[in-house]
Every structure is written in structure tokens, then in C-alpha cells.
């Protein structure tokens, strides 16, 4: 056979390309993980394996350990000593300044994590619920104008977030929803719901069509209402698709930076992870080891969620209903 010799080269080339793909994909992740286990001073040591590995970056981000700076300085006591001698109002004033300075320098990772979790979670859930009924409506029920609704949902693909940023900002300012951290978060919640709604409806609609209508008809004959069949038949049978859509919508909210930066920049208490991390990056906290640990902690939840539904995710994405 002539093929033998060629197939050796072929096998070699095949594995060479696989290795290339793996390196291409994993390269930045490898450094991200590696640096996150180092001390700040070792951040740029050569090589992938940290020489003095440490968990302290993670411990500090998760609030389990005070940062070295906080440990080493007894700033607090010294300051109080200095302030003793000052008159009352002046003392107030200085304390206020220090406090606001502190707030700016601190790295409230858990708070941002919580904000992101809340916003992305709630908006994904809302979009899922509205999406289930909407998708059921246009995949199962016939009515005049149905095609128009379906096409309209698709058309939303042509409108990017950037195009909506100006009018939505103007609208929300007029509605008075940008005056505080809380209302700004509510504005973001609405925006994330509408940004994920078309995807949810499209992906769910495609899935619902694969469920045989006869199962539903049997239930209807047995006296179930339409809403009842959605609750008792469609939803349980679509669980994989529903979970996938939830995770996909969650990721969109978790990732979102454009609207978050517009609406919550003035309210540090309401920062989501992308906004918070970026602000920190340009402050004096831009210490690489800690930034990398924060990056890992930001990425892990979504990666883990995705890996658990990878099989369904692939099916859901390729069914054609996607938007980022």
C-alpha cells in the first residue's frame, strides 16, 4: 500500500495542528491562572509555573485575609493620635476625606460579584419567563400577525447595543432612573432583559417545535388548560433548553460593559464586575497578580456553568438562535 508512509506524515501533521489549536486557545488562560497564584512582586517572573505559589490573592479578594498593606501599617492608630489635637469640625472633615479615599482604594470584589450575580441572574430569569410564553405563542398557537412577530424578533438582531445607547440613556434620564445606584441598577435590569429576550424566544421556540404536538393534545383532551399544558408538559420536557437559555442570558448580563458603564459609573456601590475591575485597573490597585486572580474568579462561574450544559449549549446555539 502506498498510503502507509503518507499516513505517518498525516498523523504527525494532524497532532501538530491539534497542539497548535490548544496552545492558541489556552495561552492567555494559562498565564492568567499562573499569575493569579503568585505574589504581586513575582507577577512578571518568567515561566508558567510560579516559584513561590500562594493563595493569598484569592484569600484577599474573598475577604478571608487582610492585604499586606493593611496588616503592616497601623495607620489607623497613628491617624487617631494626630487627629486628637485638632478641633472637632476639622477632625470630622479629615475623617471624611480619609474614608472616601479608602473607599476609592479598596477592592470590594465580593460586592461587585454580588451585584453582577443579582443583575445577570434576575434579568436572565425574567427574560426566560417572558420568553417561554412568547416562544410558546409563536411556535404553537396560530393567529393573524404571527409571522410579523416572529420576523420582528429576528429583526432585533440588526440593532446593536451601541445604536440603542444614546436614546436609551436619554429615555432613562428623562424617567429619572439615573439618580441613584439602585434606580440605575433597575435601568440595567430592564436593558438586560430586552437584550436577552429575542435570544430566549428564538432558542426556546426552536426547541418547542421539536416536542410532538400529540403529547399536548392528549393532555388537552384529558381536560388540561393551555396554560396547564405549558406548565406540566412543555416546561418539564424543555428543561435542557430552558437551562441552556438561562445560562446564555446570564452570560450576556454578566459580561455587559457598555450600558453598565453609562448608568452606574457614578455609583461605586452599584458596580458590576466589568465596571469595577476596569476602574481598579486604572487605579493604584493595578497589581497584576490580584487582577489575574479577580479575572479567574470572574471567569470561573460562567465557564463551569457552560461546561455542565455544553452538549445542550451546542445544540441550542446551532439551532440558530444566538445573540451576544
Amino acid at each position, binding site marked *: 500500500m502506498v498510503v502507509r508512509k503518507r499516513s505517518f506524515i498525516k498523523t504527525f501533521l494532524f497532532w501538530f495542528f491539534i497542539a497548535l489549536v490548544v496552545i492558541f486557545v489556552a495561552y492567555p488562560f494559562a498565564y492568567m491562572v499562573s499569575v493569579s497564584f503568585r505574589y504581586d512582586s513575582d507577577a512578571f517572573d518568567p515561566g508558567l509555573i510560579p516559584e513561590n505559589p500562594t493563595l493569598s490573592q484569592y484569600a484577599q479578594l474573598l475577604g478571608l485575609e487582610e492585604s499586606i498593606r493593611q496588616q503592616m501599617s497601623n495607620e489607623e492608630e497613628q491617624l487617631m493620635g494626630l487627629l486628637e489635637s485638632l478641633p472637632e469640625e476639622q477632625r470630622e472633615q479629615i475623617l471624611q476625606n480619609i474614608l472616601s479615599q479608602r473607599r476609592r482604594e479598596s477592592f470590594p470584589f465580593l460586592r461587585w460579584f454580588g451585584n453582577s450575580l443579582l443583575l445577570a441572574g434576575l434579568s436572565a430569569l425574567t427574560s426566560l419567563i417572558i420568553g417561554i410564553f412568547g416562544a410558546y405563542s409563536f411556535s404553537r398557537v396560530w*393567529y393573524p400577525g404571527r409571522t410579523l412577530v416572529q420576523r420582528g424578533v429576528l429583526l432585533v438582531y*440588526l440593532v446593536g447595543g451601541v*445604536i440603542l445607547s444614546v436614546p436609551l440613556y436619554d429615555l432613562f434620564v428623562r424617567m429619572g432612573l439615573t439618580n441613584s445606584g439602585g434606580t440605575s441598577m433597575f435601568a440595567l435590569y430592564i436593558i438586560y432583559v430586552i437584550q436577552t429576550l429575542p435570544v430566549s424566544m428564538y432558542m426556546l421556540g426552536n426547541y418547542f417545535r421539536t416536542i410532538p404536538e400529540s403529547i399536548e393534545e392528549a393532555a388537552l383532551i384529558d381536560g388540561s388548560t393551555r396554560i396547564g399544558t405549558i406548565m406540566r408538559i412543555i416546561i418539564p420536557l424543555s428543561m435542557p433548553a430552558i437551562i441552556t437559555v438561562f445560562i446564555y442570558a446570564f452570560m450576556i448580563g454578566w459580561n455587559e460593559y457598555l450600558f453598565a458603564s453609562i448608568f452606574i459609573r457614578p455609583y461605586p456601590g452599584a458596580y458590576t464586575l466589568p465596571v469595577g475591575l476596569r476602574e481598579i485597573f486604572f487605579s493604584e490597585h493595578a497589581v497584576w497578580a490580584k487582577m489575574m486572580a479577580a479575572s479567574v474568579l470572574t471567569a470561573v462561574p460562567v465557564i463551569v456553568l457552560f*461546561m455542565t450544559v455544553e452538549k445542550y449549549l451546542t445544540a441550542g446555539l446551532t439551532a440558530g438562535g444566538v445573540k451576544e
Partner: protein
Amino acid sequence: MQRFRELSPLRKKEAVFGWRLVSPAVILIGIFILYPVLYNIYLSFFEVSLTPGVPNKFVGFQNYRELLTDPTFWNSFGITMLFVLITVFGSILVGLGVALLMNKEFPGRGIVRALILFPYVAPVISTVFAWQYVLMPLNGPLTILLSNLGIMDVTQDLVNDPNNAFLVVSFYSIWKNFPFIYLMILSRLQSISQDYYEAADIDGANGFQKFRHITLPELYYVIGSLVLLRGIWNFYKFEEVYLLSKEARTLPIYLYEKAFTGLPELGVAAAIATVLFVVMMVLISIYVRKVLKW
């Protein structure tokens, strides 16, 4: 289309039910997507005031005139087009290549497949920091590697150099988005009937001929649609560009800076958005007719 009045009572009930189910979604999309698109066009003819009580001032086409005579705008426009071209072409090429590789069975395929999704799944903010780290001038491992290979100078700040920032961002965007392309192409590849390949084997076709005459035609519409989708998305891309490098001055970034930094000029920003939207619509309609032949 049948009119509602002419429907049988049962059908009427059904129709009302359907509309009721879909109405929350339709109302939300109407208020927060369709209306803003129109409102945006309206705003582009005004000098928008953000002070409560002060009304917007109608300025006619002045915002547009200002834009079209602004060299920065044209520069951004060109960069955006280049960015879209490079990223769409690049991510499709990489995605196709990887999908062809992954279509073969090999030990460890499951792990590699899961790994390939990482860039697409990981948050932009995390991956951006990772790339900024490896590309740091002087210390970044990739900087050192590339300078040892003689490709660049070790002191060069690739990410923040206005001349090539958009190339770095394009590379990043390809890295980030090729898994999406790969997934779509792979699922199409797996649905191609093996009979075609067996028939080709009998005819003595070699690997390349099989790819050229069976695989590629089967993939035509998937790739065509992917070009469309990625084209639209990359045209509007903000996060991936802005977070990695502000120096990659694409139109969405120009818009963002006009609207939300320094002295806000929302009217001009609205005009940019309108131009973006119109250009997009024209490109899409040409593409859909010529390439996808819908």
C-alpha cells in the same frame, strides 16, 4: 392573511390566547428597542440638552454636516470596515480549520472540544486582562517571545499604539469568536451524509478534491449566514474593542466617547448611530440578495 373578524369562534379564542402570551415580549421590545431606534433618528436632528427643563434645540442636518466633514469620523469609519473585514474573514478561516480537525475522532477529543469553547465563554473583562498581561511591553511573555523571534521590538506597546491597536484588537476578536463559528460549522459537517464521501472514494478523489467538491458546497449557506451574523455583530462591537484598547478607534468607540465622555454631544452621537444603522442596512440587503440569494 385571514382577517380576525372572519375567524371561527374557536380560532378567535386561540388567537386572543396567542397574542396574550406574546404581548409582554412584544411590548418590551417595542418600547425598548423599536421606539429607541426611531427616537435615535429624531435626536440626531437636535442639540440634546441634559439639563432638566432646558429643551432640545432643533439644528436640522447640522450634526450630520459636522460628522461628514470630520476627518476623525472618516478615519474611524475606515478602521471599522477593516476591523470587520479582518475579523470576519479571520474567524471564519480559523473556525473552519478547527471544525475540520475536530470532525475527526481522536483520543482526548472531548477535552479539546471543551477547551475550544473557553475563549467564547469566558467574560470579555477577564480575557482582556490576560491579553494585556501577555502583551505588556518589556515584561509580557508574548512580547518577549515575539521579540526573540524578531517580529517586534521588546519595548513596543502593541496594545496602546494607535497605529496598530486595531490589528491587536482584530486578533483578539478572532481568538474570542472563532469558537462560535467552529460550533456552527462542525454541526453542519456532522450532518453531511457519509455516502457522498464513499462515492467520491470509489471515484478515486483525493482529500482536497473531496473538500472542494463535497464539503465546501455543503457548507456554503452556513458560512454565508455566519459571515452575515459576525459582520453585523462585529460592526457594532464595543466591549471587546474598548476594553482591550481605546486606541483602536472604531465607530462604536467614537460614538461612545462623543456621547458619554467629556462634554456629551448626544445629538452628534445619535447621528453617528444613525449612519451606522443605515450603512449596516444597506450592506445587509446587498449581501442577502447577492450572496445568500434570499
